[in-house]
């Protein structure tokens, strides 16, 4: 499915299902764990981070696709992919942060503070790499980037909802904070396993 040339609408639907549920970028593909444990303690920070990631990833996926196909391949320096991608992402996020700060201070307060955090988020760079590894065309790149970000957000929000309740539960001292967060993430991931086989 990943390497075909002609995409029908149902293929796109399957791609979204695959990205969000079956191969959830966070729980199954392990990308984006560091902010996951830090930001998922409260619901409002989780929602802010989700919107930030959706916006940044849906834009940088296609941009890095352009950089790869029209710049790096033309000059046969594909091995510099890592450097070119991370530079592009860092510059893009910096640009967006400046723009949001000027255009909408309210939005900046809500989501702007997560933007520097998103630059070093493995799920952004990882999804850009997957776009290349799976040999997607331009439109599938956009759809896959959006689906990955949606999956990240879904896992994050579920986690935040559960973790807010931990504040009042009787957890043994040595398991508090990160440890119980990881175990919970594993159990949520286990439930996502139910979707395996739904799409490739």
């Amino acid at each position, binding site marked *: 499915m990943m390497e075909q040339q002609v995409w029908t609408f149902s293929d796109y639907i399957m791609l979204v299902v695959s990205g969000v549920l079956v191969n959830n970028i966070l729980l199954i593909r392990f990308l984006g764990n560091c902010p996951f444990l830090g930001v998922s303690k409260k619901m409002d920070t989780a929602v802010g981070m989700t919107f930030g990631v959706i916006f940044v990833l849906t834009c940088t996926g296609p941009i890095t696709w352009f950089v790869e196909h029209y710049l790096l391949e033309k*000059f046969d320096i594909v091995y510099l992919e890592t450097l*070119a991608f991370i*530079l592009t992402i860092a*510059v893009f996020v910096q640009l967006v942060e*400046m723009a949001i*700060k*000027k255009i909408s201070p309210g939005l900046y307060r809500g989501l702007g503070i997560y933007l520097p955090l998103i630059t070093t988020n493995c799920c952004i760079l990882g999804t850009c790499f997957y776009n290349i590894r799976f040999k997607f065309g331009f439109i599938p790149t956009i759809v896959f980037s959006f689906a990955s970000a949606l999956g990240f957000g879904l896992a994050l929000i579920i986690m935040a909802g559960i973790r807010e309740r931990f504040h*009042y539960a009787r957890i043994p001292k040595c398991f508090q904070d990160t440890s119980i967060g990881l175990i919970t993430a594993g159990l949520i991931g286990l439930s996502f396993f139910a979707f395996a086989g739904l799409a490739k």
Partner: protein
Amino acid sequence: MEVLKATIYPVLVMGGLAVIYALGLGIAARIFYVYVDPRIAEVEEFLGGANCGGCGYAGCSDCAAAIVEGKAPVNACVAVGADKWEAIAKILGVSVEAGEKQVAMIMCRGSKDKAKRKFQYMGIEDCRAALLAGGGDKECQYGCLGLGTCVKNCPFGALSMGEDGLPKVDKDKCTGCGTCTRVCPRGIPKLVPVSLKIAVICSSHDTPPVVKKICEVGCQGCGICKKVCPEKAITIENSLAVVDPSKCTLCGKCFEKCPTGAIQQILPA
């Protein structure tokens, strides 16, 4: 030739990319330049930094911006002392009067051995949740449930749960932000001036026969303290004694005569 291409191309392409990005960011920085009053950052240095919300704003940055804009008074931050207020006032070029520092006081002495319980509660360790379970496990409908909601929510770590099931306030760490007062479902922590010398440490409005049955140390509202006070500083409101500190001379007659010891002298820690 191949070697030349292999070395020159990467340098040119990455260098060119870097130059384009740098120019782009430089131009964007000009276009999107936002004037931020530098005084806001300076004022924020002197605020509590805990984002406790005691000032009524959504965090220390918000409060600093409001102070500089003139929307909030210089002494808006309740979590810092008068010396910080003076520093903030100096930045803005205004003056400020100092008020007295307030601290929290837990208005309940009904510990596990002194106050009766209706049933054994085994649920979420939160007083708000316990209240939903049949009105809490204490017989007294006004008393402290001792599950530590205030302790968990104190932004400055000034509260700790004692062995007897009542929270203890560290007066040095307490800043009077009022978070504990807001989160307690029964409003038991109260903000009092730090120099307060006498208080009725009970929140119960139950009548004397009821209090006698359910709590050994609660204020019954019997009125003995009111009768013996030579300055007429004590009144009984809804079966709870209230002291007017401005009239009180600390003669000590009410402490002696109180049958349960609910009215107490507050000694410096």
